[in-house]
């Protein structure tokens, strides 16, 4: 839902950084987006296309690397994949806070990133 404003911040940050390096053009941007964020990748791509128009980023390639969620259990100290609910009424797998090992309650320790990792610039 807030993909447009988030992507707008991403584009602004890249443009600012590119300016510091006196870039003539930005050729590509590498994002890392955690699967436990609420960002729809299709909407991010859509917003990106619109936002880069008439900037030195126009035509740049957007590479999105998805990162799995990581949880940690305080009871059995399991650290790893999230347990997903596979109830067919959800249609898409829904993450839960149940430990996949002992059934205890876990805490999210990874997968909430929205990171601009790098950009490819032409000077």
């Amino acid at each position, binding site marked *: 839902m807030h993909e447009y404003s988030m992507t707008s911040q991403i584009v602004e940050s890249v443009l600012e950084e590119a300016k510091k390096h006196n870039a003539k053009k930005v050729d590509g941007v590498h994002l890392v987006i955690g699967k436990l*964020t609420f960002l729809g990748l299709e909407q991010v791509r859509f917003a990106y296309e619109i936002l880069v128009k008439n900037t030195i980023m126009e035509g740049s390639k957007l590479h999105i690397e998805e990162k799995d969620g990581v949880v940690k259990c305080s009871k059995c100290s399991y650290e790893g994949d999230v347990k997903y609910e596979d109830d067919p009424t959800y249609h898409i797998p829904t993450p839960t806070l149940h430990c996949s090992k002992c059934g205890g309650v876990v805490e999210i320790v990874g997968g909430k990133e929205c990171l601009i990792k790098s*950009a490819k610039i032409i000077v």
Partner: protein
Amino acid sequence: MKEVVKAEEGEVFDIELEADILKANEKLATENRELLRKHGVQAIDVMGAIGSGKTSLIEKLVQELKEKYRMAAFKGDLTTTIDAELIARHGVEVVPINTGKECHLDANLVRKALQRLDLNSLDLLFIENVGNLICPAEFPLGSEKRVVVISVTEGPYMVVKHPFIFMNTDVVVINKVDLAQAMRVDVRKLEADVKRINPNARVAVTNCRSGEGVGKVVKALGL
């Protein structure tokens, strides 16, 4: 000395940015939390569906707790101060936050609103978010506890249709229980849906018009 290495015209570079857009909000949220803690103020987020009774809940909590705590509220809405006025009539300081078009509050808006309050004269701060069961969960604001309000008039599938926000909450309030039968909503089923996603969440069933169940919310929040 060798010649300085310079970029040639048209040369391609990879620049590292390592800038996390969500982390920027998280950092501000941590600063807000530290500021509030320094002044001994506990902030509580109230998030939830449009028209589910977030403001009614805050009104009832303010009435119930006003002998015990000195309170204030932030009221997030796209436009208007209608709800802010509803809370203010109970004699607490309210700072309305109009987001214009944005679907959620963020830590920066809360930081600005905090500057309008005398934190030394407060114990408790309610932060009511924009009515939305999606985005607010992504943006921590600096609170100690988070409440999500839903109500039976939104139908029996509010939790299963918006599972993500329930992962990020401490207390879930199921409001308008007096209308459950007319709406043919099984409140126990809604409660089970919450527990399925977040076994740690505490659930309180309320009627925020009459005040029924509000005591349970107070208890669940440890107030």
